C-alpha cells in the first residue's frame, strides 16, 4: 500500500465523518445545556465513572490483600469524585479528593502498615460465611434495585445546571447549617484528642 493510498483513505474517512456527523448523534434530541458537557457526554461519563466505581467496589469485596482493597477504595473514591463533578458538585469533588483520598485513605493505609504482622498476612473468611454474605448482599441489591425501579424517576431532572457551588455551600454552612457545622468542629476536636489518646495510651 503506498503512502498516497493511505492518505486518501484517511481523507475519505474524515470526509465521511465530517459530512455524516457521528453515528451516535442521530436520534431525536432536545436542547442541551450550553456548557461543554452535553447530555449524552454526561451519560457517557456517568457510565465510565460509575463503571469504574462499581468495578472498584467489587474489587474491594473480592481482593484478599488489604492493600489492594485500599487501592480499589482509592479508585472508587476517585470515581465518586468524578461523579460529583457530573452532578455539578465541584466543591464536593475537590473536598472528596482532599479529605477522602488525601486524608482518610492515607490514614487507612497507615493503619494497614502499622498493624500487619507481615506483609502477606491474610485472613480468609470461611466459605460458608462468604456464601451467606454473598446471598444477603445480592438479595439486598436485588431488593434495592427493584425498589428503585418501581418508581419513574425520569421527571424532575434538575433545571438549574451549574450554579456556583462554593458560594452557596459556604453561605449554607454559615446560616442554615451553622449548628451542625459547629458541632462537627467540636466533634473533630474531640476525635483529634480521642484518637491521640487512644493511639498513645498503650505505650506508657
Amino acid at each position, binding site marked *: 500500500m503506498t503512502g498516497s493510498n493511505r492518505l486518501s483513505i484517511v481523507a475519505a474517512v474524515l470526509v465521511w465523518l465530517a459530512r455524516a456527523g457521528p453515528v451516535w448523534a442521530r436520534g431525536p434530541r432536545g436542547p442541551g445545556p450550553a456548557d461543554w458537557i452535553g447530555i449524552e457526554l454526561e451519560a457517557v461519563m456517568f457510565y465510565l465513572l460509575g463503571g469504574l466505581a462499581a468495578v472498584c467496589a467489587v474489587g474491594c*469485596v473480592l481482593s484478599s490483600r488489604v492493600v489492594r482493597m485500599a487501592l480499589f477504595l482509592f479508585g472508587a473514591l476517585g470515581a*465518586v469524585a468524578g461523579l460529583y463533578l457530573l*452532578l455539578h*458538585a465541584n466543591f464536593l469533588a475537590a473536598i472528596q479528593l482532599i479529605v477522602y483520598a488525601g486524608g482518610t485513605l492515607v490514614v*487507612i493505609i497507615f493503619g494497614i502498615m502499622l498493624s500487619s504482622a507481615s506483609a502477606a498476612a491474610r485472613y480468609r473468611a470461611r466459605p460458608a460465611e462468604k456464601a451467606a454474605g454473598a446471598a444477603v448482599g445480592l438479595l439486598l*441489591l436485588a431488593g434495592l434495585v427493584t425498589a428503585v425501579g418501581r418508581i419513574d424517576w425520569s421527571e424532575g431532572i434538575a433545571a438549574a445546571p451549574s450554579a456556583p457551588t462554593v458560594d452557596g455551600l459556604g453561605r449554607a454552612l454559615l446560616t442554615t447549617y451553622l449548628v451542625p457545622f459547629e458541632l462537627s468542629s467540636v466533634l473533630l476536636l474531640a476525635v483529634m484528642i480521642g484518637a491521640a489518646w487512644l493511639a498513645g495510651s498503650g505505650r506508657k
Partner: protein
Amino acid sequence: MGSITLMHYLVLGALLFCCGLLTMVVKRNAVGILIGVELVLNAANVNLVAFGRYRGAGIDGQAAALFVIVLAAAEAAVAIAIFMNFYRHLTTVDVDRGDLLRG
C-alpha cells in the same frame, strides 16, 4: 432517550452500598471492615448529592454530603486508633479474635 436520571445514581449507590456491606461481612481484617464502611458512606453520599441535584433540593444534598465526609474522616481516625490498640493487645487485626464479649 437514554439520558441519565436519578435512577442511575440510585442504582449505582445501591451497588456501592451492597459492596461495602459485603466487604464488612467478608473481611476478617479490621481495616477491611473500615474500608467497607467508607464504601457504604460513599454510597450514601452519591445518593445525597444526586437527590440534591435531581430533586431541586439545592445545596442541601451537598451540605449533608460534606458533613458525611467530615464524619467519615473523624470515624476513620478513631477507628484506626482503636485498631492500633486492638493490634497491641492481640497482635493481630483479625476481628474474629476480638470476641471477648461473646455471650
